[in-house]
């Protein structure tokens, strides 16, 4: 009666978990014995029994040894990626947290490359676009000052197009204002800035442990804490935050399910080299939607950019195996060739790859030369690339995943552990940063009123604020992918018209920009910026339009614009009708 029985669960965080291994054995058995013998059936049932058993606590699971006060933390963050580091930095920027809370950050690998990154050398292929809102937030938590700015490229314009028909290039152009729409920043740059922010925090607030793989996680006595075994040592925390990526072991531990689907696509990334353009500085991001998925050109420097080419897994594999010169050619073709020519090139690539003889540069040149002469397209094209950094070529599968819940008893999820998305809108990390911001302020509020930070009630505002915006973002990106990937006459027409309408209608475009170029929710302005109302004269007036009033004002403006368009269209129609009548009358008169 005095002691509540402890519920315990075990998990293995690394790829080869027992629950995954066992079913594979069971599934493999029938192929060896087409008619399963009794022994095989026994083996199968044994395997099943074992696999179900592995989720229940085995009998030999010993009690958790007593854990010292030094190893007792309030908050344990698992994962030293951008989301985990951002969360830790956000937490230490809150005074109450700084004064009262002990935080442990566990990273399975080493943070040495991050710490010692010298903002020189080749570009990393893990690059994210950071939206203006998130940059403002990073400034407000004193993290942005650690960014190597010459390795973070401002994106002033975004150009998006899809041209199934070479004669028409419906295009969407998001023009820049006085501040960049986003900044292309290497993840390692962001991570280093955040790590430096943590190192500036007062002694003893955040402990960072590297090479600390969590081997086991269990609820402690009375569910009053969560114990984590690192090697032979146990640590515990009132709250465990999973910032541990798409295959989050913390999510598994908390028995939070996910839903979503795999896009039948891989993202191929590479660092591109090109000549600096004397006329157009490299501050424009380009994205072309192909039937197989979007190909994006994202600026890094005057003479370097990065690419994300989302395409079918076989094609991504084939591209990856090309020699650099051939890949350069293929990428240039990906941005410039009409879709039907591109299809011919892709088939040739796939066929050669299937024969295990990837096309050489000369072979590809021959194929491209044999294509019918392409008509000059009116699409705005990115610079012609001259080379690819071979070591930067990599690919990864694309998935839409959303956790059913962001919190459980003593557990919270942020970033990729909670959601993964298609990279076409560059929202993955931005949503993760917004998660970190909201979770940190939720925990700060909980702490200032003495709540148990692991309690469901204390954590409730976090999913309340983040779940729906994230869900809307995931869904919107998913729909965009479908709409832009579809190739049939009706969709082509609808998409083309839609793009042109959006491009012409200012308020509608502003709405899309707010959702495409920026994070789903707005970070609060910093105190410094709020001091005199606005930081810059061109900033929107504070307090004038926000929330519902802003939405209403936008709606009113949209109605006005629509009315103007309708009036103009009506004028044209009326004029046409009048002309037709006059002509008819003339014709009658002539008779």
């Amino acid at each position, binding site marked *: 009666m005095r*002691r509540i029985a402890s519920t315990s669960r075990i998990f293995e965080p690394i790829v080869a978990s027992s629950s995954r291994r066992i079913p594979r054995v069971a599934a493999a058995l029938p192929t060896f014995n087409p008619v399963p013998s009794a022994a095989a059936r026994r083996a199968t049932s044994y395997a099943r029994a074992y696999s179900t058993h592995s989720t229940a606590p085995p009998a030999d699971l010993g009690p958790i040894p007593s854990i010292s006060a030094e190893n007792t933390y309030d908050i344990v963050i698992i994962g030293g990626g951008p989301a985990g580091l951002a969360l830790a930095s956000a937490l230490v920027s809150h005074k109450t947290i700084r004064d009262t809370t002990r935080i442990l950050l566990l990273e399975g690998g080493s943070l040495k490359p991050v710490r010692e990154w010298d903002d020189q050398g080749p570009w990393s292929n893990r690059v994210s676009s950071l939206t203006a809102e998130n940059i403002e937030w990073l400034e407000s938590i004193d993290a942005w000052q650690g960014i190597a700015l010459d390795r973070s490229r401002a994106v002033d314009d975004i150009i998006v197009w899809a041209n199934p028909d070479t004669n028409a290039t419906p295009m969407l152009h998001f023009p820049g204002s006085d501040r960049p729409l986003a900044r292309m920043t290497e993840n390692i740059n962001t991570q280093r800035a955040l790590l430096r922010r943590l190192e500036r925090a007062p002694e003893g607030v955040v402990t960072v442990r590297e090479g600390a793989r969590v081997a086991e996680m269990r609820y*402690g006595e009375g569910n009053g804490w969560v114990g984590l075994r690192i090697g032979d040592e146990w640590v515990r925390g009132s709250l465990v935050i999973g910032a541990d990526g798409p295959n989050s072991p913390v999510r598994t531990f908390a028995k939070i399910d996910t839903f979503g689907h795999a896009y039948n696509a891989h993202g191929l990334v590479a660092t591109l080299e090109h000549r600096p353009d004397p006329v157009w500085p490299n501050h424009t991001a380009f994205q072309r939607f192909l039937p197989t998925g979007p190909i994006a050109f994202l600026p890094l420097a005057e003479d370097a950019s990065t690419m994300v080419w989302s395409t079918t897994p076989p094609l991504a594999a084939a591209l990856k195996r090309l020699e650099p010169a051939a890949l350069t050619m293929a990428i240039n073709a990906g941005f410039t060739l009409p879709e039907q020519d591109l299809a011919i090139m892709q088939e040739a690539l796939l066929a050669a790859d299937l024969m295990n003889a990837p096309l050489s540069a000369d072979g590809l040149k021959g194929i491209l030369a044999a294509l019918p002469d392409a008509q000059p397209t009116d699409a705005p094209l990115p610079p012609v690339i001259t080379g690819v950094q071979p070591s930067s070529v990599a690919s990864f599968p694309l998935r839409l995943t959303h956790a059913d819940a962001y919190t459980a008893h003593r557990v919270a999820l942020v970033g990729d552990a909670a959601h993964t998305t298609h990279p076409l809108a560059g929202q993955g990390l931005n949503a993760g940063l917004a998660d970190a911001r909201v979770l940190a302020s939720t925990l700060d*509020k909980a702490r200032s*009123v*003495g709540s148990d930070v692991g309690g469901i*009630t204390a954590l409730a505002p976090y999913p309340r604020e983040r779940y729906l915006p994230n869900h809307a973002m995931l869904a919107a990106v998913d729909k965009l992918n479908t709409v832009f990937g579809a190739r049939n006459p009706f969709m082509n027409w609808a998409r083309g018209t839609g793009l042109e309408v959006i491009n012409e209608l200012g308020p509608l475009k502003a709405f899309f920009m707010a959702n495409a170029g920026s994070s789903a929710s707005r970070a609060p302005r910093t105190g410094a910026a709020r001091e005199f109302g606005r930081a810059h004269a061109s900033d929107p007036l504070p307090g004038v339009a926000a929330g519902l009033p802003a939405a209403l004002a936008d709606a009113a403006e949209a109605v006005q614009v629509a009315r103007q368009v309708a009036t103009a269209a009506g004028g044209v129609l009326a004029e046409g009708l009048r002309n037709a009548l006059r002509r008819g009358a003339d014709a009658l008169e002539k008779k």
Partner: protein
Amino acid sequence: MSSCRTARAATRLASTALRPRPALLATRTSRLATPSSTRRHSTQQQTTLNTINQDEIDHFSRLSQHWWDETGEFALLHRMNPERVEYLRQKVAMDPHAEPEWTFADRSNDKRRDEARGSGRWLEGKRCLDVGCGGGLLAETLARLGGDVVAIDASAHNIAIARTHASCDPLLPFVDEHGAGPSTPASIPGRLEYRHTSAEALHAAGEKFDVVCSMEVLEHVDQPGEFLKCLGDMVKPGGHLAMSTISRTPLAQLLTITMAEDILRFVTPGTHHYHKYVRPEELRRFVAKEMGGHAVWEANEDASDIRVGEVGETRGIIYDPLGGRWRLWPGVEGTWAKGMGELCNYMYHAKKRA
């Protein structure tokens, strides 16, 4: 203030809010109705449980294992806790009477100083009493904020649950029934101690506290007047008395009894009794007339007790079902809008003169 008016007020309070149910008259509690008998028996544990209703003790003992189920019987109470501690923070940590004197030399630090006052462990060094702690929902938060907390409850079951729960949290400075602890490192201030006793017994033992809280208890005791006097006496000079309770209005009947108990079953039927509810103005007038008035208690900084014969501040606290949280009701004292917020649940606070 004439003694006549004082007596009348007391009678009114007693006749409206404190009237015990006829069925309870036969129990021991009703026999200990007069203050004199309270004092006389206060040294004996058994007879000092005087303002406590035995039925209520039994009721909450039956529910005691649900205290820490954040989605169960006490879910609404769990959600209310942050907001009532926030109220306490505004009153105790941000107390305008305790504000450091403003100096011209220090003018640039205003913002930082304000931030520092209401942050961190703002109860550090303060002796707090939680009367009717139940499972320890409030007591644990006070201890986490650095308070030296004594939490009492009349139900032994509740105390047992509270002790068990606190002992499972390694970061709580918990002291067990044998006085052992706290086992937390010295860097974590505070102290949390649960006692199975009554406010009257504690009062008789001469204990004094910086902060006396009694959340959602007033509507469960038999003689709220005696109970209040006892709490008021235990507040140190310069200390705070904070309470939350439910007003006796048709809206409260509808929300807390008809809806929450009978229809939606958020709360076990029988938890609340309409006739035991206390109205905010009754509470303020009682403190003014029976507990020393403004001679003992500070006038409110915002002059919200500007009307004569009332002490302390009441503030509505309402549940926002869309936000899933409770909210403190804003408004200026004496206005219709502020009164609307206090039609159901409300907070009460008064500060004793130093």
